[in-house]
């Protein structure tokens, strides 16, 4: 059972559909690994249902019902366009919601090496939001950094530690501008996580400031 959870505000934003897709994907992935949050989300969704029931509807265009009725008999396969890739479903390490977004299991994804950290970009159509799978070698350290916005990291394999705690599979680490950290991966197993940042990382270490400067050019 994960030890680090989304806060109640984040769960409510997820349940109500207020989150952008990358963050919603991350929360859904945590929830699928966390019995406690499943219960909470079910309650928040039921609250959404109750509020939805009380919502005053907006009248539809006149022919809306006829349009809908006409579509009932169209086979779904004729309407569906390209489905999500769904390649990650067979990998037991990948939470179900995330599996739909991956081309393949974790090992055969097209990892790109960026300064010792493996990276696969996902959901690239969201300006201002970066969604990535990150893979850090067992025992390796990331450069010290802080963030301009929020960074959400969901642990899938292995673990890592920083000043704020020790994170393992299913745990959600949330860092914002106030956190200046230097995560170190656990020994034994590569650390793979789903990371969503809503602003570029700001590197703060001695070496980091230099990289940061380069990144802005």
């Amino acid at each position, binding site marked *: 059972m994960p030890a680090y959870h989304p806060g*109640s*505000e984040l769960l*409510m*934003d997820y*349940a*109500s*559909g*207020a989150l952008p*897709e990358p963050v*919603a994907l991350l929360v*859904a992935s945590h*929830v*699928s*690994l966390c*019995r406690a949050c*499943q*219960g909470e*989300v*079910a*309650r928040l*969704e*039921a*609250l*959404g*249902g*109750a*509020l*939805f*029931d*009380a*919502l*005053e*509807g*907006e*009248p*539809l*265009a006149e022919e*809306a*019902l006829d*349009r*809908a*009725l006409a*579509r*009932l*008999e169209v086979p*779904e396969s004729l309407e*569906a*366009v*390209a*489905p*999500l890739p769904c390649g990650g479903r067979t990998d037991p390490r990948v939470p*179900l*919601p995330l599996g*739909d*977004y991956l081309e393949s299991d974790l090992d055969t994804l097209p990892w790109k090496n960026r300064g010792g950290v493996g990276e696969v970009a996902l*959901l*690239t*159509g*969201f300006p201002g939001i970066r969604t990535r799978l990150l893979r850090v070698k067992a025992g390796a350290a990331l450069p010290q950094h802080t963030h301009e916005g929020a960074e959400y990291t969901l642990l899938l394999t292995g673990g890592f530690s920083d000043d704020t705690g020790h994170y393992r599979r299913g745990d959600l680490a949330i860092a914002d501008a106030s956190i200046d950290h230097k995560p170190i991966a656990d020994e034994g197993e590569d650390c793979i996580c789903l990371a969503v940042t809503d602003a570029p990382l700001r590197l703060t270490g001695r070496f980091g400031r230099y990289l940061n400067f380069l990144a802005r050019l």
Partner: protein
Amino acid sequence: MSFEQSAGLETGPGIALAGLGASNAQGRRWPPRVPEDPLPDCVPDDLVEAIARRQDREAFKRLFAAFAPRVKAFARRRGAETQVAEDLAQDVMLTVWRRAAQFDRRKASASTWIFTIARNRRIDMMRREARPAFDAEDPSLQAEAEPSADESLAERRREGDLRRAVARLPETQSQLLRLAYFEDKSHGVIAEELDLPLGTVKSRIRLAMHKLRQMLKEDE
């Protein structure tokens, strides 16, 4: 032959929710067309199940009348243009038709189920706008691992209590909850609009949630 006709021929009269799907424009088949509501006691849960069991178009029409305008309102409040909101309503109701067999009244009410479909399909539609090549099935419909049957039942019983509790909340608190659920606004924007400090909005939403929890405990 339409679904309506085939359903009527195969099941005949006397089925649960008698009359669903057996009426037609000519009114020749059983039961005869009556002026008053043919399905007076059907709650939305029954209607979704009628679709699941025998692709009941009459049940669909009723669900459509009840929920499509709410889906449109939901989309509009989340900032969608009128046409996009209409499309979402179509899309959600079509999903209700196709996925009706997945509905389980022991887990959630039809309103909650349809609300979560609206939420998920809206995300899909926004993705389609952002990335035309990346169209979607509904990934989030199978998002969560299944809770045990006991847990689902307990959740479902609580849902009625929750509904009553929401109705008893003071208007200022239910207004905040509606804003949090149905406006595409962060707590920060809500604070600006209500001319309240952000901390106050957050604490009031927390307070409303706390109050709901308390009312639910009292009901137990």
